[in-house]
């Protein structure tokens, strides 16, 4: 079970997700309490456009299904490629044929036959041949980064490729007559509407069109590049604060996951929003750690993240310099903090009642610190 989290690249996923929770979280307009409740406590299903595949290595990895908005451009590109190929071949045959016509009149007829057969083959078997030989991808699919696989995760077999491509014409049905565009055009039914395919895609769990259903295939997103993200902590106060976290605090698995999600997401949020989101979790942690109440919740969560994921367990004593003599512990509240008593850099300027007020009251020092 994974926490629904948001990535910049996952617009489709969010768009296609029917449940409002994730979208609200994406906009940051849900209450923080609920957000963390969902993230920490509830068993959250993966999004319903995600399909798990169990491999012979006995591990399960996840695919993202490709919906109509990814597949339509691929199809249009394929149509263009098909007709361009036919056009190019036709032109080549025409040029070649005019040369050969000097030799014999037989060739003209022959090239006509070749072109006709070619049109037939390309129009009916373009997808089949490419998908069978290029591992489930046509040129359009390759450009759009999608791929056809069998529903059980195996690569597509030639028979399935044949079936799903033959049935495309049924998915494009019903056809509209050409005369619906203009009165003078002939009554030829050739404008595909694709209603059947669309309805079938929206009604099935794996977003299959009729051809996919019959062939037992599905189309998945085939991400080519994905940079390995590493969260680096640049803030010098974080290791220092982390060293104050009691050593006997055992972090739970769910908590670790929540912290990682938070650390990945926090760079996209403004400082006030971070504090707002972090507060509900941080309040309990402050009690548990016996820290001061006015500590920056965002920094506390980030320090905990640092301690969990990045810090060496037997590291040398952290440099407390960045804290400037400030102690986060609750018992040290009344103590003097150096000669000129510098403004405690960890505490936000004022405990914000609302995000807007904290923005207005933030001092220059504070805005520098909280970035």
């Amino acid at each position, binding site marked *: 079970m994974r926490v629904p989290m948001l990535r910049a690249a996952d617009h489709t996923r969010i768009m296609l997700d029917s449940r409002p929770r994730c979208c609200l979280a994406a906009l940051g307009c849900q209450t923080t309490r609920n957000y963390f409740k969902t993230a920490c406590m509830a068993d959250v299903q993966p999004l319903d456009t995600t399909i798990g595949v169990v491999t012979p290595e006995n591990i399960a990895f996840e695919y993202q299904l490709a919906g109509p908005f990814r597949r339509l451009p691929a199809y249009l590109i394929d149509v263009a490629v098909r007709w361009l190929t036919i056009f190019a071949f036709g032109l080549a045959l025409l040029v070649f044929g005019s040369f050969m016509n000097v030799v014999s009149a037989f060739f003209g007829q022959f090239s006509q036959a070749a072109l006709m057969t070619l049109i*037939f083959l390309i129009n009916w078997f373009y997808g089949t041949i490419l*998908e069978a030989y290029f591992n489930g991808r046509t040129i359009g699919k390759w450009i759009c980064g999608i791929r056809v696989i069998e529903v059980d995760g195996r690569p597509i077999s030639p028979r399935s490729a044949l079936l799903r491509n033959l049935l495309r014409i049924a998915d494009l049905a019903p056809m509209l007559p050409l005369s619906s565009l203009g009165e003078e055009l002939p009554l030829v039914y050739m404008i595909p509407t694709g209603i059947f395919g669309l309805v079938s895609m929206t009604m099935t769990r794996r977003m299959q069109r009729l051809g996919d259903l019959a062939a037992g295939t599905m189309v998945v997103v085939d*991400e080519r590049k994905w940079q390995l*993200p590493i969260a680096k902590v640049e803030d010098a106060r974080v290791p220092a604060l982390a060293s104050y976290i009691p050593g006997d605090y055992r972090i739970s698995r769910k908590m670790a996951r929540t912290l990682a999600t938070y650390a990945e997401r926090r760079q996209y949020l403004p400082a006030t929003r971070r504090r707002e989101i972090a507060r509900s979790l941080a309040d309990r942690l402050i009690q548990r750690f016996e820290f001061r109440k006015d500590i920056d919740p965002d920094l506390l969560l980030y320090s905990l993240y640092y301690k969990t994921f990045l810090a060496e367990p037997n590291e040398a004593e952290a440099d407390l310099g960045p804290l400037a003599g400030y102690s986060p512990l609750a018992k040290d509240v009344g103590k003097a903090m150096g000669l000129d008593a510098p403004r405690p850099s960890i505490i936000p300027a004022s405990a914000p009642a609302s995000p807007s007020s904290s923005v207005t009251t933030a001092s220059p020092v504070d805005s520098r610190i909280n970035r």
Partner: protein
Amino acid sequence: MNVAKLLEKRRVDWTELESLCDAMELRGKTDGAIPTGQPKPDEDRPGTGKKVPARKDSQHRGVNGVLRFSSLYRAACADLALADAYQLPPNTVTYLHRLVARAHHQLYRTESASPGGWIRVLFEEAPRRIFNDGCVRVAALVFFGLFALAMMMGASEERFPQFAENICGTKMLETSSASFEKPLDVAPETYAARAAFYIKHNTGIGLQCFAYGILLVPCLFTLAYNAIVLGATFGYMSREGVEGSENFFEFVTAHGPFELTAIALAAGAGMRLGMGLFYTRGLSRVDSMRAAGHRAVPIMAASAAMFIAAAFTEGFLSPSGAPYLIKVAWSIGSSALITLYFVVLGFPRPRPSSGSVVRSVRYDELSSGGGSSSWDDASSAATMGVERAT
């Protein structure tokens, strides 16, 4: 070990796997995978326990490349499996999912369609399916029944006046009758072009009929429409006093058997597809459709092959000035071939033993190795019976 260290260590393998994937996607081979831009770990940290061998170009060539790829893939799989235990950050887990999926695509590839496989489908699987398939029977009955009916109605002018004209249109009937006024003798140069046109046109209609089978109604409509129009045309042409009727029948004789059977087969395959949606035989609807789809493909393949055979006949033999006897002989021959194909190749036969270790025997066969007295009695009685019989 903390997560950052772990990631840093595994990252080298992951980037190498990625570069191998890049090479496989570009060239289909592991050759020439670019060594990653990472500092080579064995040179930087010579003292670490697990030593990654130095990457050279030769290491990714041929068998070595494949072996390296598979071991890296398994390592990435293991990392993904242990991601939860390692408490990897979610972003890294997503990265691993993508990486494993990508490598999975390169490792498990489509088995390429060998021509031998399709020949086996065409000559072993297809006739048996056709022989057993109820939908094909229904489609053939509908097609040939409607065809015969329309032909009779079109032929008897007194009882059903204007039937053929209403169905096909007077103009079309007149043009087709006029086009057969002259004896058949088309210039041989045009044979290939004609055959190609028939391949494109008729096979296209067959494939379309099959595809619409999943919606059932359009398939049945195409089938019935073709049967009635063809039948009415045939009936009209067989009337007394229609010009060019002799030439018309001479023309259609040769390719008729292949083409008519092919239409019925295509519709039968399509109906099989559509029936999978309604008649599920205890499977879930989606599974049933899938099973029906895979059953229908061989029938469609046989139909397409027949369409192409018909197109060649129609292009090369039918319009030629060859004697009528040859065309009739070809027609009879092709009908015999189709019958042989359906009946001899398609007749249900016991499956050859699939090499299973488990097999069933009768009890008296077991007793031959000696055992209790009753077994001996039974076996002796059996042998006596055999002796008596001999």
